């Protein structure tokens, strides 16, 4: 019994220790700013999708909550941020906080209604809440602009100093700083006792319940945290693009985030970074293709990843590294 405890604590300590390679994505994100000065809008959308996919990883990768409705929180955040600006409160930081809180509130409300459920019923209900919100946004045109979207979301300068300029310097740093801060939070959660308990729930909820873990409460808490993160991603997107459309509440957004997460490898945080970055950048370069060709490619890739590519791109990297290490260790 004591041994088990020691092992768990040791694992938790090792999980919190930073490895050198973990600096790599952040160095690349900073370098991107200087190398691709003319493509900061693309960089901003990469960072927004990384943040959104990261929040999905907490829910799905760590806690094992199969959801098709995660875009609900992105959309809620985006619309909240947009609506307060259009209503006459253009200060972005307070808008961001409000957006995250609204998303978290809805996550607690819906989460406490449905997180005791499992499997197909849970999938259906997460999807149902999303299409419900889509329908509201679509029909409540006075508030949301309906089908045309919310136009003229002009945020005031960030911290009163940095205007959201056309070149996109402000929005790039805004997204990067926020992403880094929330990544630290996600990493702290993932390596905490709470994070370990979530993994336990993912593997065997019944056993965790028998051990006295408040399963449903844990799930609602992580659902709310991830909801707030997704809401923040939505708010950054609204502030950056000056526009909120119905696609922020579309099933396609949920599906795309799932694709990105699985492509990168779920349940390891960095998978979200790799997957979302690769997906958004590739999609950008394919943007002058027929969109249906892109769709075919993504669909086929998804089928192949599920069938053959467990762990996504990072899983593939792991296997390559193991193979190389084995070759090195092998006696000559």
């Amino acid at each position, binding site marked *: 019994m004591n041994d088990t405890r020691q092992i768990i604590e040791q694992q938790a300590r090792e999980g919190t220790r930073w490895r050198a390679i973990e600096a790599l994505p952040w160095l690349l994100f900073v370098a991107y700013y200087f190398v691709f000065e003319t493509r900061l809008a693309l960089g901003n959308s990469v960072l927004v999708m990384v943040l959104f996919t990261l929040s999905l990883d907490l829910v799905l990768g760590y806690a094992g909550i199969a959801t098709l409705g995660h875009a609900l929180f992105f959309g809620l955040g985006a619309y909240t941020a947009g609506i307060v600006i259009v209503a006459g409160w253009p200060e972005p930081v307070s808008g961001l906080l409000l957006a995250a809180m609204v998303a978290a509130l809805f996550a607690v409300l819906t989460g406490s209604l449905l997180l005791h459920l499992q499997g197909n019923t849970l999938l259906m209900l997460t999807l149902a809440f999303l299409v419900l919100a889509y329908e509201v946004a679509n029909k409540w045109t006075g508030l949301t602009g309906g089908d045309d979207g919310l136009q003229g979301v002009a945020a005031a300068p960030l911290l009163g100093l940095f205007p959201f300029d056309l070149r996109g310097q402000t929005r790039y740093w805004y997204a990067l700083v926020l992403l880094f801060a929330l990544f630290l939070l996600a990493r702290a959660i993932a390596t905490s006792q709470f994070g370990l308990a979530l993994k336990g729930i993912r593997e065997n909820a019944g056993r965790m319940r028998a051990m006295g873990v408040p399963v449903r409460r844990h799930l609602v808490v992580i659902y709310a945290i991830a909801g707030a993160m997704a809401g923040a991603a939505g708010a950054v997107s609204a502030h950056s693009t000056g526009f909120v459309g119905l696609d922020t509440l579309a099933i396609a957004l949920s599906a795309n985030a799932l694709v990105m997460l699985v492509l990168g490898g779920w349940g390891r945080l960095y998978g979200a970074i790799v997957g979302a970055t690769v997906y958004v950048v590739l999609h950008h370069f394919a943007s002058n293709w027929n969109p249906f060709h892109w769709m075919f490619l993504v669909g086929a890739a998804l*089928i192949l990843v599920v069938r053959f590519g467990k762990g996504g791109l990072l899983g593939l990297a792991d296997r390559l590294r193991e193979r190389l290490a084995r070759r090195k260790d092998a006696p000559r």
Partner: protein
Amino acid sequence: MDRLASFLAFVLIDGIAFGMVLFVISVGLSVTMGLMRFANLAHGAFAAIGGAVAVTLMSSAGVPFLLALFFAFAASALLGLVLEPILYAPLYGGDELDQVLMTIGLIFVVIASLNFIFGSTPLPMKLPEWLSASVDIGIRVVPAYRLFLIAVGAVLTVLLWLTLDRTEFGARIRAAVENPLMAQAVGIDTRRLFAVTFTLGCGLAGLGGALGAQMLPIDPVYPFRYLVTFLIVVSIAGFGNIKGTLWVALMLGVIETAGRYVLPGIAAFLTYLVMIGLLLWRPNGLFSKAR
């Protein structure tokens, strides 16, 4: 009073016809999700393929309507038969997330392929003359097509009921839905049973897609657009509950049709709200006994 009766007759006939289409498409999905416990989001793709095959055969090869319906069934069933062992079977009993991802991938591939083959505009269903006529049923004049849909739906329902209730094949299916492990233990080859029912379900989806092509127009994004509708029907009915699927499909058909005329703005919203309420109240389906 006459106008009210006429309106009610219209809503009932239109709604039941729509409900029959929903039933024919969804019944296969219900069996997949109930029998195989498979989160199959791609079921609408088989309906779209059936519809596209039927419409194209009629418009460009002059195939008569009823024969085109048969080909719609055959094409989707064949595709199901081919895809089941390659894509679906390896994920039976697995993680539902894998099933969701694989079927989303399949939807993407089908949407892209439909666009490649048939173009991105809706395919117009041109009904034969004997179906474009109108019939006077006393209270009002109704399109013959709606009555045809109701008749076909009724015939299929009876056939399905006879198969499930009166044949050994049906008994095997019922046993496997009820308790797959026990069914296997008493010597039912569930693996083959899955393949056969999946194929039939896909075929019915194709038939439903073709039958309903005038109400649910066939275009490449069909599998995504009606995904939620089909899932609503089978989840409220309870996965695997075929009788329930019929009732819920008819109910949804009538409610949606009525809603479109009485509350055009918020009909879809109310439908989703009621659906969430029903699912939270009865997570295992409206007709389940336990909460």
